[in-house]
């Protein structure tokens, strides 16, 4: 079985088969016999799997990847990080790209477009897509059941709640920084954020919710922290007549 003139598709299939056989404990020699690939190819596929998982096993496509274009200057980036770690001005709950651009211009005399900031968010892993909650309404899935049982009744019960937020907290796997992020999406899905260098504490959650409640009666679908064990957050929420919080159940996949 000669694998010298295989199409990329069948070569990739054989590379995957070679990895499966190696996972089953077969020697390189045995794998070469079964797949028709050469020993260096089997070893290369195995090495690629070890370093990058199944996604790395197929042969690579050519060309520059998306997002590999120009990057912001290091000093610019440092300023951006500093600002994101501060509380936003004017009682805003978090930073929007427009708010950040204005602040940088006014306070640091830095000209940066919203688009450039959003690109930078993406490159630093800060970008977050809103959850497709409305799409869950008609789905016969775990997400659909949760939406119909927990979110929809609250939305219909609280017609006066003009503000509907998706809020979450997460740790970003950043190569050089410790980054914890509050991410927020309003009705239109626009992203707002606030970052921390340490895990947020109860006071951070309370001040975020206070800022959101100042914008009017609201419902927050929340993911990322076990707020029910924090007495401070529980107490604050209990005192609010027009602010409702719906926690996303653990391990419910709600990503877009």
């Amino acid at each position, binding site marked *: 079985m000669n694998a010298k003139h295989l199409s990329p598709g069948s070569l990739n299939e054989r590379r995957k088969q070679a990895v499966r056989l190696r*996972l089953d404990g*077969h020697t390189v020699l045995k794998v070469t016999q079964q797949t028709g690939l050469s020993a260096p190819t089997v070893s290369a596929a195995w090495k690629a*799997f070890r370093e990058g998982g199944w996604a790395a096993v197929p042969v690579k496509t050519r060309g520059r990847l998306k997002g590999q274009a120009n990057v912001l200057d290091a000093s610019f980036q440092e300023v951006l990080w500093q600002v994101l770690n501060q509380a936003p001005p004017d009682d805003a709950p978090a930073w929007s790209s427009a708010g950040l651009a204005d602040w940088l211009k006014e306070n640091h005399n830095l000209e940066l477009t919203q688009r450039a900031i959003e690109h930078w968010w993406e490159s630093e892993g800060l970008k977050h897509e809103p959850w497709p909650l409305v799409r869950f309404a008609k789905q016969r899935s775990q997400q659909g059941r949760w939406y119909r049982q927990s979110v929809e009744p609250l939305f219909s019960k609280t017609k006066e709640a003009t503000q509907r937020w998706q809020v979450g*907290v997460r*740790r970003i796997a950043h190569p050089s920084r410790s980054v914890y992020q509050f991410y927020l999406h309003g009705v239109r899905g626009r992203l707002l954020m606030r970052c921390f260098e340490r895990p947020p504490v109860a006071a951070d*959650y309370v001040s975020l919710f206070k800022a959101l409640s100042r914008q009017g009666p609201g419902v927050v679908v929340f993911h*990322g922290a076990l707020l029910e*064990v924090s007495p*401070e957050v529980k107490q604050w929420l209990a005192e609010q007549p027009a602010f409702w919080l719906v926690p996303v159940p653990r391990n419910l996949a709600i990503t877009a």
Partner: protein
Amino acid sequence: MTSLTHLQRLEAESIQIMREVVAETENPVMLYSVGKDSAVMLHLARKAFAPAPPPFPLLHVDTRWKFRAMYEFRDHMAEDIGMDLLVHINPEGIEKDINPFTHGSAIHTDVMKTEGLKQALDKYGFDAAFGGARRDEEKSRAKERIFSFRTAQHRWDPKNQRPELWKLYNTRKHAKESIRVFPISNWTELDIWQYIYLQNIPIVPLYYSAERPVVERDGALIMVDDERMPLEPGEVPMMRKVRFRTLGCYPLTGAIESEADTLPAIIQEMLLTKTSERQGRVIDNDSAASMEKKKQEGYF
């Protein structure tokens, strides 16, 4: 002649060790800690003596601080396999309410694990105990022989070990001596995962990545498994995708951030890792050579 894969060779070696122990000792027991190594060891034991069940009971030395998922899994397994499961908790530990938070990890481990194990072995008169320790976990485990002899007080003398040349095991015991036997000592963490994958061995779900509530303590991610876990003022547990490489008492076991929620993904992660799984155990960092000291005192 067909050649065996390295896993088949390891399997054959472990089965031979188990049969040797059953043939040479009077009252053996298998220590069952509910982790992945115990799961593999139990699977090997069932293979070694099939179709009969293994001719020894399982012993779980409980500390009352294991993960809830571990207790559920233990009870489910005991029901499933039809072997006797003995559970021992040090009564003095219960009386004094020994716990990792107020007493610290060293005292908790000593009282609830080391003393608890010694009590259980004495109580039932076991003269050989299978343990799932592996050489690649920790340096003192690396130098321990497969047949590790213990004095009447369960002490281990690392400078007085028997040679095991050509895999020949000297099982002769002095009066009141006992043996700790490590049938999977020569396996690596990766071997364990490949074997679990190939043999479809059930394991505690905590080994798979999932969203779990964790807090950061001294660089370790500690899961908030029940309401007994005291939180710092203002601390809020975050939901993070984590899994455990090793399982012990939940306040003393660090999780790792991981996306590996299937066995092939875990195996891939193992191929890349450069640290020992025991780095997640707080008790191993108590002091230099802490494991060796604990082992000398009777820890397994």
